[in-house]
């Protein structure tokens, strides 16, 4: 039911990294996903390295040049309520406010949300699936109603469960990673691993590395960002379909934009086709319908998740119309 593990609360990031470099060590930030995984025996653990007390890793600050740096231990609730994030990075605040439940938002951290394990019920259940080192993806021919329509590589059909990652990716955020080799950054967009590259991991973190912060670029007045999430239940549920949109608008003309889907693929899924369809266009009915078609172009639904095609189409229509209407109201 619950693995046996030793426990350490390092006093510094450096100490933490030292412990985490050991075989079988797992990082504990908010602990919500870790303890859930341990109960389900999703992976083995020997040592739990708790970084929850490293208060330097928590908080939101403005950096020179006008961007934000959000410490990885900042809770999801803090992000959803932060005035600067609500104002300038709306998609992130909205995404954060849609995560799980209030208690989990109070406890879960941004770093944890980016690094959480998939929610595939085969992966979490008593199935030795491909992602756990087995030979079979049980979802492929099984109960795959909550699985992906893009990006499986034919191997693993999870969807990435994060609501903040699509928003961060749409906002072109960078993730700051600290490890034995020091500090490196990479776009959030590239942080997650496609099954065809490695089916056994979800992020490009190397052993001993942890996410220490996320950096958001300076806000632009013309950028409007939103996050929309559709789920089977209105609370404590992951996205059936979701989208983070970050659009640079001139009136209701889209100058440029980034569109990242949740509930679609094993990673937060950037929809270049939607971006190409709306770039330079006024958000009229024709553009919106074309964007709706584009969002599912190339999708390969499974036996039980074909509903995701109309769902993504309808959702993109609704979001773009909403943006169109509010742009009209503003202008």
């Amino acid at each position, binding site marked *: 039911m619950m*693995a*046996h*593990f*030793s426990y*350490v*609360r*390092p*006093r510094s990031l450096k100490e933490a990294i030292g412990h985490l470099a050991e075989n079988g060590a797992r990082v504990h930030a908010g*602990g*919500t996903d870790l*303890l*859930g995984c*341990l*109960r389900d025996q999703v992976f083995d653990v*020997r040592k*739990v390295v*708790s970084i929850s*007390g*490293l*208060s*330097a*890793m*928590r*908080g939101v*600050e403005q*950096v*020179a040049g*006008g*961007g934000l*740096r959000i*410490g990885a*231990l900042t809770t999801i609730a*803090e992000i959803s309520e932060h005035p600067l994030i609500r104002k300038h990075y709306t998609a992130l605040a909205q995404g954060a406010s849609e995560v799980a439940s*209030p*208690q*989990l938002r*109070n*406890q879960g951290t941004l770093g944890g949300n980016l690094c959480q394990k998939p929610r595939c019920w085969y992966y979490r259940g008593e199935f030795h699936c491909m992602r756990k080192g087995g030979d079979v993806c049980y979802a492929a021919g099984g109960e795959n109603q909550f699985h992906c329509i893009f990006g499986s590589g034919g191997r693993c059909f999870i969807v990435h469960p994060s609501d903040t990652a699509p928003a961060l990716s749409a906002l*072109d955020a960078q993730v700051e990673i600290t490890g034995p080799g020091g500090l490196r*950054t990479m776009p959030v967009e*590239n942080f997650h691993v*496609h099954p065809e590259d490695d089916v056994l991991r979800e992020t490009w973190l190397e052993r001993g590395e942890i996410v220490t*912060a996320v950096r958001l670029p*300076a806000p*632009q007045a013309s950028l409007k960002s939103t996050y929309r999430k559709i789920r089977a239940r209105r*609370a*404590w549920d992951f996205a059936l379909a979701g989208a983070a949109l970050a659009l*640079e608008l001139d009136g209701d003309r889209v100058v*440029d*934009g*980034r569109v990242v889907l949740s509930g679609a*693929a094993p*990673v937060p899924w*950037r929809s*270049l*086709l939607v971006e190409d369809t709306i*770039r330079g266009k006024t958000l009229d009915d024709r553009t919106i319908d074309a964007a709706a078609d584009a969002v599912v*172009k*190339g999708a*390969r639904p499974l036996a039980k998740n074909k509903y995701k095609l109309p769902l993504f189409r309808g959702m993109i229509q609704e979001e773009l119309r909403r943006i169109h209407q509010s742009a009209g109201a503003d202008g």
Partner: protein
Amino acid sequence: MEKPNPKRSLSNHRISRRSFMAGVGAGTVCVAASSRLFASGGGEKEEEVINADSLSKLSLHINARDHHLLVEPRWSLLYVLREKLGLTGTKEGCSRGECGACTVLIGHVPRYACLTLALEAEGAEITTVEGLLNGEELGAVQTAFAEEDAFQCGYCTPGQIMSVEGLLRKNPSPTTEEIRIAVSGNLCRCGAYSHIFKAAEKAAKARSK
């Protein structure tokens, strides 16, 4: 088949990438959050690795009292509250962070005790449903729940009460929608939600008097 996701093509950052990257430098210092949950400070224990099988000393500050006990690293706060300290007002419904029956306040913030290791709660102010009593007098939220019949079997009730208590400490006059969101991490299989909303509204009024 078209493959729209550009996982390695970084060329498509069309939104003014330069300005996005500005200000991100190595010298940035992160300001500590003002509301730390846990005492840090250099207690000797913090660097010590606690072995899986060993019991270690732990002090918990619960309902304004200190409790000293021995715990295994894997014991949850919920297990310790219920099975070791006799604080059984906090209920176990799933031990998976999915029902909220174990909701307690840490600081003033509702959290799931089942997904909190007991060791992680060291140094925090923990409030359980028993801690809302003043002697044997019910707190405002408890009274409102009783008066509005905001429960049936009563098993999810302490968790619901703690979620409402946490809400009202932060937001003394919430809207119904804010109340609904605040208890959305607390399942009630008897389905008392609409009475819970009423009770929360009533408690908010009573507290503001």
